[in-house]
């Protein structure tokens, strides 16, 4: 045994190494199984999968890419939170400084392009799942969870759109949230909203409807920025995180990546 082999052996059999990785090098079936089973991240997967389930021309890898992009967005988003202050006073200038003052600073770029990419990858994931009939029993419920996750992806992107606090942002959000005031039964310009009143006092007006609740005011201003910031950084990611856990778990429980019955 050469010196290098001896050092290697000492290293891989040391108490420190063995405390982290409880199995040998994954070149045997047993150790390959243990590599997946004894790793909290990898054990999202089963030990073995259908061969069709890893064929790229079948799965397109879009679900995995969506999840990876979510992680990228989480990390870059946290980085951006160190510098960005969600107030009408500072928001725009903070973005300008991120743009002008950070050498090779691409966190905002990664975050924005990653967000666009995630919208596309989630759509394509749904597209693939539909076209392979993978929503059919027993996966009906997981399809429903997926639809909600798709909606959350759009909401995450939409709430993030406001944060740079530039012209692009407030007018896109103005166009988007103007819809809310037409919500039947909850918006003041919704159908029959004028009939919701107590005597002569209208209960549903521009200061009490769902758009007001969303924006914290009658138009897109500082309170809306704060609300969107909190929803974007805390609210929606939490809900999406919980639903993703359900989604991935159900993929396993409903028989793994779909294949012909």
């Amino acid at each position, binding site marked *: 045994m050469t010196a290098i082999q001896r050092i290697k052996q000492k290293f891989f059999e040391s108490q420190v190494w063995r405390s982290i990785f409880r199995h040998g090098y994954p070149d045997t079936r047993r150790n390959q199984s243990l590599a997946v089973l004894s790793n909290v991240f990898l054990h999202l997967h089963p030990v073995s999968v259908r061969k069709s389930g890893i064929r790229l021309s079948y799965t397109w890898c879009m679900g995995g890419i969506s999840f990876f992009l979510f992680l990228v967005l989480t990390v870059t988003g946290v980085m951006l939170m160190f510098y960005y202050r969600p107030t009408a006073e500072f928001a725009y200038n903070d973005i300008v400084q991120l743009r002008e003052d950070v050498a090779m600073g691409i966190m905002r770029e990664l975050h924005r392009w990653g967000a666009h*990419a995630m919208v596309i990858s989630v759509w394509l994931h749904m597209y693939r799942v539909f076209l392979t009939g993978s929503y059919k029993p027993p996966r009906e419920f997981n399809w429903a969870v997926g639809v909600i996750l798709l909606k959350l992806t759009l909401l995450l992107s939409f709430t993030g759109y406001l944060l740079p606090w530039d012209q692009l942002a407030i007018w896109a959000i103005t166009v988007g949230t103007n819809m809310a005031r037409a919500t039947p039964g909850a918006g003041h310009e919704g159908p029959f909203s004028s009939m919701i009143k107590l005597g002569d006092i209208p209960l549903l007006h521009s200061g009490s409807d769902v758009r007001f609740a969303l924006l914290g005011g009658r138009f897109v201003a500082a309170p809306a920025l704060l609300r969107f910031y909190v929803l974007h950084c805390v609210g929606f990611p939490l809900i999406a995180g919980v639903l993703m856990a359900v989604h991935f778990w159900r993929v396993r429980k409903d028989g793994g990546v779909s294949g012909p019955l």
Partner: protein
Amino acid sequence: MAEHDVFSYVPTWAWQPKFFFPILSLLFFIVIWNDRLIRFLVKPATALTVLAVATIIFCLGLKNPTFRAIVSKGDNIPIVMMLLLVGFFTWLALRRGTLNDDRIAQGLKPMEEDEAHQKVMVWPDLVYIEFICLILISAGLLVWSLAMKAPLEQPATRVDTPNPSKAPWYFLGLQELLVYFDPWIAGVLLPGIVIGGLIAIPYIDNNPKGQGYYTLRERRFAISMFLYGFLILWVVLINVGTFLRGPNWNIFPLGDVWDVHKIEVLNNVNLSEYFWVLGMGQPLPAHWFVRELPGFILVGGYLVLGPAILAKTLFKKMYQELGFVRYSILVMLFLLMLSVVLKMVLRWSFNLKYFVAIPEFFFNI
């Protein structure tokens, strides 16, 4: 300058959605229901030719400054990317679907079948695919981020309204529907129905075939409905909103300068006016209920009689297979999707504004 670019060969009227949208819709259904046509289109040679022609037109188009300005706008890059990806994956799915259909017709199992019964170890087979995917995506994102700055315009101000004001790109299809519907329908009802309808799909579709492999023939109705909704009503309308809608939400042919002062005649007429004024030759009745009675009858008849008539005729087999509840939900979703298209066509051909217009209650459909 517009004389010399590739877009000037297309006549102005051809850029109007009222021209190309119905044609696209018709073409879509002709192709998806025609096995021979679709087999020709999914041949790699055909697909590559389409891609090459599109790329050449796109590159020639870049000579046009207006087109270049729209395409190179940061937030529009993903739309170009999405067009490529959606095109590619539609081709891939239909290609594999038709290959599988041929195999099934010969009494063979679908391509995925063999591999479905072989198991591979996650470590290393899946883990390394994921790892490579992750590296490629990271590299792509890094290059994209280094090459292009994220957009940032002037600081937000409520004094200066941009014209046109556009929603984020993925909502532009819905914003496009605002031309034809009131906000409570385009912005609330229809998105709600899309979400609800998507969730309902697995509970309505009780066709046991076609699970876990690409096919067209075994699920043609389901696939054609979904593809029509996604490709034509969602992706095409997003592109109309991005590339053709300019100031004042007017249609501008690709490559034309966005002139803020362009004037379009807007002369939309309600059904009640068509019926009472033009049809009966009398003024509009004073009470809204009488005034809108023709609209109520038309819309009510469409949603009540439509399902019954379809159950007896076109959807007879489906009604028997699905049962009453599933059929009712399906046919409602179908009729509502169709009504979106119908309303657009009626607007284009008769300037029809509303079937039922009760501005007294903000209730216009």
